[in-house]
Structure formats: C-alpha cells, structure tokens
C-alpha cells in the first residue's frame, strides 16, 4: 500500500485521455491514440469493464483513424456511446476530439 502522503500528491499529474467501456470501439480508440499522437507514450490500462487510455499533456483522436481501425464509417458524436469518462478537459469537433489540460503541473 502507498502511504497517504504519497496518495495525496498523486493529483499532481498531467495525464489526459478517454476512459472507454471495453469493446470494439475502445480498441479502435486505443489504436487511434497511438496513430494520431506520434512520438508520445500511450498507456492503456485494461480494467476489464473499461480501458483507461492516457498520455501526458494532450491527446488527439481523429475520426478518420477510428474509421480505419473499425473498417466502417464513423461519426465523431458516436464516440459517446462508450466514452464513460475522461481525464483532463475535452474539446469536441466533427473531425477529432482533443483531451488536454489548461495548466501543467
């Protein structure tokens, strides 16, 4: 177990990204996260019911990349069907979704 002083400092992080219900779309989003954020380390924490997909500072997920991963047309608002939560702030757009922080810590 981690001591509570350490736990208490864990909020000092810059991790951003979606938390997806497990399934086909979650896998596609994880793939898009890797494709659309070159050079960044993408972490995927599989909690069986959900996948926590994150990276530091900023993450972009593009509609076309999800389409490639799924092999079928995809509208960006459909992301919400499995987007259970997310770290950081969100910016929604017809062609991409962006997760970010306004302030770095």
């Amino acid at each position, binding site marked *: 177990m981690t001591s509570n002083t350490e736990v*208490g400092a*864990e*909020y000092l992080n810059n991790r951003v990204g979606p938390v997806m219900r497990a399934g086909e779309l979650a896998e596609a989003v994880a793939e898009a996260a890797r494709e659309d954020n070159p050079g960044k380390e993408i972490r995927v924490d599989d909690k069986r019911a959900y996948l926590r997909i994150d990276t530091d500072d900023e993450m972009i997920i593009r509609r076309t990349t999800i389409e490639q991963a799924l092999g079928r047309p995809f509208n960006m608002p459909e992301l919400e*069907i499995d*987007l*259970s*939560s997310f770290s950081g702030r969100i910016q929604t757009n017809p062609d991409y979704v962006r997760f970010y922080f306004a302030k770095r810590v």
Partner: protein
Amino acid sequence: MAVLNRTDWYDVARTTNWTPKYVTEDELFPPELSGSFDIPMEKWEAYDEPYKQTYPEYVKVQREKDAGVYSVKAALERSKMFENADPGWQSVLKLHFGAIPRGEYAASTAEARMMRFSKAPGMRNMATLGSMDEIRHAQLQLYFPHEHVSKDRQFDWAHKAFDTNEWAAIASRHFFDDIMMARDAISVGIMLTFGFETGFTNMQFLGLAADAAEAGDFTFSSLISSIQTDESRHAQIGGPTLQILIENGRKEEAQKKVDIAFWRAWRLFSVLTGPIMDYYTPLEHRKQSFKEFMQEWIVEQFERSILDLGLDKPWYWDIFLEQLDQQHHGMHLGVWYWRPTVWWNPTAGVTPEERDWLEEKYPGWNDTWGHCWDVIIDNLVEGRTELTLPETLPIVCNMCNLPVNYTPGNGWNVQDYSLEYNGRLYHFGSEPDRWIFEQEPERYAGHMTLVDRFLAGLVQPMDLGGALAYMDLAPGESGDDAHGYSWVEVYKQLRMKKAS
C-alpha cells in the same frame, strides 16, 4: 441537399437569450432559482460548453446506447447469473438499486432547473439533454431490478427506499436535497454536475463496473458503465460555470460550493461504495480496493480537474486523506451490526483470507477493526448471536446523517464536533461536517436525524421493532447476514483445531 457542418450553426442555434419587453430580467430569471451572483446577462452568454451535442445527435446516440444495454440484458437473461451469484454480490445489487434510481429521477428535476432558469444558453442546452439522461437512468435502474422482485422482496426497495424513513435513505435524501434540489441553477451546475458527477459517480458506475465484470455480471457492468457515458457528457455543465464565476470575481463562493459537495459526497460514498467494494464483492472478484479506486478516480482524476479549472485543493484535504484508510471500515462494521435496519443483507467479509487481504490493503486493519470483529466472531462461535445485534442507537452526525465513528484500537481518538445553535446542541462526525453547517446554519438547523426523531418520541414503541416499523422495513425485507453466518464455520474449526 448538403447539410451544414455542426460547427457552422451550433453557436447560432443555441444562443437563445433575448431582451424581454413585458417582464423584467428578475421576473424571467428569478434570482432564487437562477442564481445571478450579480453577474450581468452578457457575461453568462460567454458560457461555452466544451462537450457539444445537438438534439438529433443525442437521439441517435442514446438509441444506440439503449440498444446495447438491453441486448446484453436479453442475451444473458437465461444465464442464471443472479441465481448462482454469491449472496455478497446479490447484496451489492440490492444496495445499489435501492440507493440510486429514485435519486436519478430527482436529478432530472435538478437538470430541468438549469434547463429553464440558467442565464447561460449553452448550459440550458446541455441541461435539456442532461434532464433526459437522468430519466433514462431512473427508468433503466428501476426496470433491471424489477425481474428479481418476485424472487426476493428486498429488490422492491429499488422503488421504495426513497419514500421511507430508513436511515440510509434519510442520509441520501439529505445530501441530494442539499446539492441539487434546494439550490439555484448555477449552484446545481457546480455542486451536482461538477462536484458530484465528474468525481464520485465514477466510483459507483465505473469502479463498481470493473468489479461486476470480474464477478461475471456483465448485465450490471454494461448497464452502469453505459449510464456513466451520459454523465461524462452532462457533468461538463459545471466546468464553464466555474470559469464564469472565477472570471467575475466569485472564486471564493465557487470554491466553497465545490468543497461542500465534495465532502458530502465523500461521506455518503464511504457507506455506499466502501463496504461493497472491500467487503461484499467476493474476494476473488475484487479488481482493486476501495482506496485504490478512490486514488484512481478522485485523487488522480477529479482533484486534478479542480486544479485545472483554477480552484484550490479543499481546505480539509489532509483530513480527507486520513479518512481514506478508515472511514468506510467503521461504516461497514456499523451497517453489519445494525443489519436489521437496512434493505439488503450485509456481508461480514471477514474470513481469514479476507482479513489477510484487508491487512495488505490497509496495514493495521487486524490491530484496529479486526479487534471489534474478533469479539463478534467469538460471540457467533459461542452461539451468542443476540450479542451481535443492536440494542442501542449510534450517535448520528447532524450533517451527513451517518454514525459518528473512528478507528478503534490503540489509536482510539473519538471526537464529537459539537456546535450550539439557537439553543440546541448539534453533533458532527468531523470538522468539515460542522464547517458545512456553519456556512448556512438556518438551512440545516431544522432537520432531525433518525436519532433526533427517536429521542423526540416520533418512533414508537422505542425499541428495535418500533424503529423497523418507522423505517418501513417489513419481515422479509429487513437485513440479516448475507451468508446466514455460514462463514463462522471456519472459525469454529480453527477453535477445535487449537483445542485438540
């Protein structure tokens, strides 16, 4: 005909403020309901919701979500998952379904208040969808447990709990009435959508979904994680609201509202989510401990977002961290001990293997809470079950309406945070609980806890039978040990081994 891109028309379509000619602004937006904070109308119009959604998109996406959730239910209906589930897991479901769906109906009214009375057009749009979300949550979570009512009448409490004076129902109502039913639209945006929904709902709807998936209950896992996709969107109502308050010199008030909602949610979740994650969920299916889920969702994710929006850590942060190791163990012990007063069957969760797990996750557990359970176990081994049942009442906090409890053992340092107000002595379980009362004493002073009601003679006869009748707990509904004390056998055998 080509359809315009959403970004080309969204702002125009939802900018629906106009200049009233026949009524004043205060008549159109009564301050008590709107929450003006002396911020002029045009400043509210700067509200820009980050998670944009239009009505046609909403309908399409929600239809997809429901199709998914109902098909999982239909596909697994004949799997006998529920019948074969450990009684501890069945208790998780009973507790969840009693505590949540009727609160969701109430939340749709709170969203409707923002939909009608907020001065920010973007907020009204998001809250329109939010209000429909909450109706979906109430209906789903009343429909899913309904199939079990004929097998087990404790499931009837999905519909019934909020209409009773059962103590956990009183505590829930007091909290939700405070943050969402009895506040203006702006405060609801801050306290319900930001303070509660971006934080603690993730514990119950995603953390618990992970445990549910481990337990093989994919119907429940799919249901609650789908509900959380709605929350994920409409919880974003709060962020821009906070931003406008901060930009207009109202940071202190905004901070206070977040601090109140956060603390009150923490107290309620220490009795709602803590015990089911660390004691009721069968050991082999526990994905993480309650504390680890709290660290993931509340410390690393929620607290970080508070900082990003320009607010500070709550002043009671250290008290909160200290309680992370402690509070829910006491709540669990209390719920199990007062088990006839709840609508589910509490799991003790203290077999030797489970105690090893608790000791690993919470070092020192055996030396503190373990001692209390040792006494209970001794009594059960000796067949003195009556000594493990309640004869007296706990001291209940006048804010969270939950028993005042502290860690037993050598570090025993119980403290009653009391306060005299208008000639009456009030008792609180912690400094933040008392602080919340002090911010607006007239708001809280008239409420009577269950124990206040007992002492005022409202519960008759003044014994357990009278209390159960007051709480509407009929035989067959009133809780008992989830496993019918079968777990005590292992301790009997250990004794016999020791004696031989």
